[in-house]
């Protein structure tokens, strides 16, 4: 095995907010995603090294799950939520409806995810289209703070904050993992647990 942790993230949000472009941008424009037709999901992979708080290097195999358009017809396959360790919740800064739907996505997510307070980064995408913006940064931050989410303004077109959003999410998930992991289990069996008391408090919901 050439990694210490297999980490699965799921990109969520209304159709058209730029989820696929976002993941495509992060994986350096590599198109070779794998599509699993039985559940209608698509994923891309990337390997990276994560530095823990005590300076150790962990090899991460990151899987980024994409909804492949099924959200146009239906609520997502629940397997999607259950197996994800962290969530990128996207809305389109130029589309008010996609921002209003964030609450519904959060409800769905909390119902089906591995726990009630999973790590989520809210991304206001399409920040390059400043002249068409209808959601102010203040309004988005207010929502993010209310629900305890991290918030970043991203652009899948220019790449602004795309890698940052995934790094911030990875950091949150790894901190949770470090705090809850049972050291006796093998690396690939390590899992996440909720509500452990010794999770280091995340510094702030603002990373900018």
């Amino acid at each position, binding site marked *: 095995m050439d990694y210490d942790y297999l980490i699965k993230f799921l990109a969520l949000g209304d159709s058209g907010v730029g989820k696929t472009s976002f993941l495509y941008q992060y994986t350096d424009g590599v198109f070779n995603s794998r599509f699993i037709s039985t559940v209608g999901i698509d994923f891309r992979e990337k390997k990276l090294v994560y530095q823990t708080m005590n300076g150790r290097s962990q090899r991460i195999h990151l899987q980024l799950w994409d909804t492949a*358009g099924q959200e146009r017809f239906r609520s997502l396959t629940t397997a999607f939520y259950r197996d994800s360790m962290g969530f990128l919740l996207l809305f389109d800064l130029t589309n008010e409806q996609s921002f209003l739907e964030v609450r519904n996505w959060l409800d769905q997510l909390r119902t089906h995810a591995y726990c009630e307070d999973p790590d989520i980064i809210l991304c206001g995408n399409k920040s390059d289209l400043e002249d068409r913006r209808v959601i102010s940064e203040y309004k988005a931050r207010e929502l993010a703070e209310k629900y305890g989410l991290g918030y970043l303004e991203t652009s899948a077109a220019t790449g602004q904050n795309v890698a940052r959003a995934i790094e911030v999410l990875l950091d949150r998930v790894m901190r949770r993992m470090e705090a809850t992991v049972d050291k006796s289990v093998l690396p690939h069996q390590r899992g996440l647990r909720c509500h452990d008391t010794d999770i280091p408090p995340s510094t702030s919901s603002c990373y900018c």
Partner: protein
Amino acid sequence: MALNPSYEAIGKGFVQQYYALFDDPVQRPNLINMYNTESSFMTFEGLQIQGAIKIMEKLTSLSFQKINRIITAIDSQPMFDGGVLINVLGRLQTDEDQPHAYIQTFVLKAIGTSFFVQHDIFRLALHDTV
């Protein structure tokens, strides 16, 4: 009413006509003529809808620009009231998304020499586990 011996041709002809309208965003609103104001039922991904107006609200709310479709099989049966039961197995692709398999079932109810869609059930063929 007797069994309609042309059920195969009616099934195939209807499916072709229905999707020609559905897949063209300009013509999609004309689908309203296929449904009855009160006695048409639709189950769309588990959502129960009754009546042409509500059915059209659902169909026109779907958020894609273009749709490509490949029909694998159309299975039809005549019904004892003169109607036709149709089951479609196919794949559809919306915009640049990955293609998904789907199943759609129709019941055509005869009125004189014509038909309307009395029942319409749609599901993407997606499962909860890998």
